[in-house]
């Protein structure tokens, strides 16, 4: 009897529990409001000590650490922008998710999945400090501290087998401290080629997940487990030194590296218009490449000739054949006064087929304005031959290193030996007594190399690379670097001046393969020079 009653009791308990859960669910949870209300925010000054105490661990980094900067203006901007961002992001998210959902649901025999509500809430993302690091490399490093404790409301309604269930995500909180590195820096907007993002610490994630109104995340233990799981997953992917790489520009293109050579043969001109009052004109041609810093070249002057023949050759380094053009202007040479323009024309390089010589006869124009009636007048013709030769992949001249990996030495290096590369980046605060036109003189094992002169500049940039082929590692050698200024005027007084020097021991380079550092110049007040050294070996 006792056994039967106990068994019945157990059964009853089982039934009772289920019934109780159902009743309890309907009593306590079902009628809970599912919408998210905006929290009331009282000014901090009015808060009591208890809540202040609670806040202490969350005090922004800029309060605690002097090396973090306050970015209140950014927070304000985000705050004003937030309602718009909210709508924009939600709209985009819906647009992306809907086709995917439509494609997936037939597989699982689900009738429909739809967003009931989708909003990011009223609380914006906040930056709790920003820190930047300065290094000698071509990169920008910043570490914002991002905290988003929002009140978003994402409700997804799933219909299947005639039943309807909702899954709701509320109160999402994400705190991350990413390191954002912009590198390499390049001389075209937006001035960096790639963004690297990695997390310096495991992120903090917290949220409420309501399944048919019941918050699963409040089951003791489960929350902690899920949180750890998410943290570990994210950490596996992006925790430093793992990074997320976002390419922005093609670095090769962004650096405007040369991609080819244009050979120009200036042949002759015909029927030029007379400009001089007495006798024929004295024509010469100025050749200029658009969008390049290379100076224009001038042909020789053919005196008293309206049908001059030059047969002169010129070469131009091309950086972007799509947009660059060759500008040819014929001038009349004068002994006194302004040289008068006799006519001009422009050849866009995209009109040329690579590797194919093309002889062009150009009508000379007054200017490049097509509608100018003055262009109809005949000013003569100019005959040129052009060949555009793009560099082949392997002969691409490797300008200074972009990646931080050291290149391999060329194949003909002797075993055990290698190539020592010296890259002279820039100097700061070099100053001469009489003139400051700095250039760098390198002395290594008796070999002397020089960089270009930078005129009148205390903070010159050279960015020049020099290589030395060596039989064995330069373990016991030194590199002597000297910043020299030469007078721009021809004069006997102070023709040359040393602005400072530095000796660099090369043994570190051999063991480190690459060193990029700023050295203080000796015999200089404040001068510093940034030198990159690389030891390239075959293996």
């Amino acid at each position: 009897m006792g056994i039967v009653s106990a068994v019945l009791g157990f059964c009853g308990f089982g039934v009772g529990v289920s019934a109780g859960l159902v009743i309890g669910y309907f009593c306590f949870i079902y009628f809970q409001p599912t919408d998210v209300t905006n929290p009331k925010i009282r000014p901090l000054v009015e808060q009591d000590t208890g809540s202040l105490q609670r806040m202490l661990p969350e005090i922004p980094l800029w309060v605690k650490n002097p090396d973090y900067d306050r970015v209140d203006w950014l927070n304000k901007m985000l705050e004003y922008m937030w309602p718009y961002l909210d709508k924009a992001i939600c709209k985009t998210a819906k647009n992306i998710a809907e086709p995917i959902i439509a494609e997936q649901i037939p597989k699982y025999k689900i009738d429909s999945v739809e967003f009931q509500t989708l909003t990011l809430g009223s609380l914006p993302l906040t930056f709790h400090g920003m820190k930047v690091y300065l290094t000698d490399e071509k990169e920008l490093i910043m570490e914002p501290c991002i905290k988003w404790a929002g009140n978003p409301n994402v409700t997804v309604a799933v219909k299947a087998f005639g039943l309807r269930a909702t899954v709701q995500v509320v109160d999402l909180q994400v705190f991350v401290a990413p390191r954002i590195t912009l590198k390499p820096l390049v001389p075209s907007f937006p001035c960096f080629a790639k963004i690297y993002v990695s997390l310096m610490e495991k992120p903090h994630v917290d949220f409420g997940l309501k399944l048919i109104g019941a918050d699963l995340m409040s089951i003791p233990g489960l929350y902690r487990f899920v949180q750890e799981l998410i943290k570990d997953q994210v950490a596996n992917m992006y925790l430093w030194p793992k990074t997320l790489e976002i390419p922005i520009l093609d670095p090769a293109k962004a650096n405007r590296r040369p991609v080819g050579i244009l050979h120009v043969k200036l042949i002759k001109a015909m029927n030029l218009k007379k400009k001089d009052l007495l006798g024929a004109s004295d024509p010469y041609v100025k050749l200029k490449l658009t969008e390049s810093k290379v100076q224009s070249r001038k042909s020789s002057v053919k005196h008293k000739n309206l049908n001059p023949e030059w047969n002169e050759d010129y070469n131009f380094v091309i950086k972007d054949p799509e947009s660059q053009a060759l500008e040819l202007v014929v001038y009349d040479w004068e002994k006194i006064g302004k040289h008068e323009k006799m006519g001009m024309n422009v050849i866009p390089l995209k009109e040329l087929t690579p590797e194919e010589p093309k002889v062009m006869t150009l009508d000379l124009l007054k200017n490049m304005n097509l509608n100018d009636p003055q262009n109809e007048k005949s000013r003569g013709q100019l005959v040129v031959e052009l060949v555009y030769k793009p560099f082949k992949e392997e002969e691409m001249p490797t300008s200074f290193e972009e990646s931080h990996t050291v290149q391999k030495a060329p194949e003909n290096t002797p075993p055990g030996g290698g190539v020592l590369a010296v890259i002279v980046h820039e100097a700061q605060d070099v100053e001469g007594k009489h003139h400051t036109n700095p250039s760098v003189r390198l002395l290594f094992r008796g070999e002397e190399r020089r960089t270009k002169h930078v005129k009148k500049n205390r903070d010159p940039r050279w960015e020049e690379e020099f290589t030395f082929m060596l039989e064995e590692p330069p373990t016991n050698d030194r590199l002597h670097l000297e910043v020299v200024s030469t007078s721009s005027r021809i004069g006997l007084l102070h023709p040359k001046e040393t602005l400072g020097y530095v000796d660099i021991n090369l043994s570190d380079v051999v063991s480190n393969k690459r060193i990029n550092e700023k050295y203080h110049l000796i015999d200089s007040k404040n001068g510093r020079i940034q030198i990159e050294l690389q030891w390239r070996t075959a293996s």
Partner: protein
Amino acid sequence: MGLISGILFGTIFGIVLMAGWRHMMRYRSNKRVAKAVDIKLLGSLKRDDLKKICGDNFPEWISFPEYEQVKWLNKELSKLWPYVADAAELVIKESVEPLLEEYRPPGITSLKFSKLSLGNVAPKIEGIRVQSLKEGQITMDIDFRWGGDPSIILGVEAALVASIPIQLKDLQVFTIIRVIFQLAEEIPCISAIVVALLSEPKPRIDYTLKAIGGSLTAIPGISDMIDDTVNTIVTDMLQWPHRIVVPIGGIPVDTSELELKPQGKITVTVVKANNLKNMEMIGKSDPYVVLYIRPLFKVKTHVVDNNLNPVWNQAFELIAEDKETESIVFEVLDQDIGQDKRLGIAKLPLIEIGAETPNEVELRLQPSLDMLKIKDKRDRGTLAVKVLYHEFNKEEQLAALEAEKTILEERKKLKAEGVIGSTMDALDEAVSLVGSGVGLVGTGIGAGAGLVGSGVGAGVGIVGSGLGAVGSGLSKAGKFMGRTLTGHSSKKSGSNTPVTSIQENGGAKSLQR
């Protein structure tokens, strides 16, 4: 019995379990919301808040200036600067050269950059302030300071004189840049950006000019001309309320709301002046008044000879684009051989003018608008003017906008044809919808290359007398040469389009090219 008690206990247990769950839900939810509130509060800490949190241990390095400091941004900027400078050179060249062309003063036939490099010194952002002055807009004020070492060489070509390179040295820019972001509900959330220089405090752009391989005196008055050009570009293009609107991200948006639009019409009657300063050696000054709101649209009165208490009683119509910040500038000048001398200048902020009611104002003339620079405090006399502000309704506004466009196009066309040297040459008040004729004077070299423009419609003949200096070649007069005298009809004429008649173009044209 066991069954019933089992069910009963079970039910109670279940309910309690659920109640417990709900309790946990509440607890966790409250905790999260509390944290969210904390984060929000800590995200925008003020001084008082921080005082309360830190108590006596208030961190000394923290301050809360109106313009927030951005040390980190400056660090980044100085590192990035060489690359930005490289990238910006091309962009600047392409965008500024057409501007220079448009605002080029008469007397200069070509103004171009022959070399432009921005130097090694990065600009500094002294502070940033963000506010939302209007729904859906964010206003960001950037305190921008640049004492750079750029190397800017302008290739200046003037009539008859070979091109001389002029170097702009020691450029210093101190200004507050106002950037307004127009928000949108599409990514990237910003539909347009408005850029302007805040006029209070006035943007300071200092530089010294130096001719390379020659002297600045080779073209008389050239430095004044360049100063004038730079000044006009800055005040007429950039200085608030003038602005540059840049639409962003492929969303087609109506940016017309952001553009500066004619807001109202001001009828100004220059009545008379009293006690002007005598600037001439023999006799008395020959005063006239130049008045403008935008330097691009200047108008002037006729000259009263030999009089220090002249009476003009001439009416003009000017267009106001932003009543809040704009002002009318009255410049009293003495007509003279060579450079016209300034007798005094006065400024009348539009905000002081009551709408739709005639105001009579007596203005004190000053030697210069820049109060800091005034050395001599002596009285320069007074100027009596009558002003009437009329606010446009929608149709009038559109009409005014159209008229303004036509005028600018007209000028461009004329310029392309080589009739006038620069858009600045044609001085007319056609903005005010009055289709009176426009007299044009080219760069007058020689004895006052004058021409007569005849008024169309209004029937008021206008005699534009060339202000060219007699036989003085291109003297400093170039600055005011080619500015036109225009007569005026006080009533609106029938046609909205100003008809420019060029009857005689004399030597001016041929000498100009």
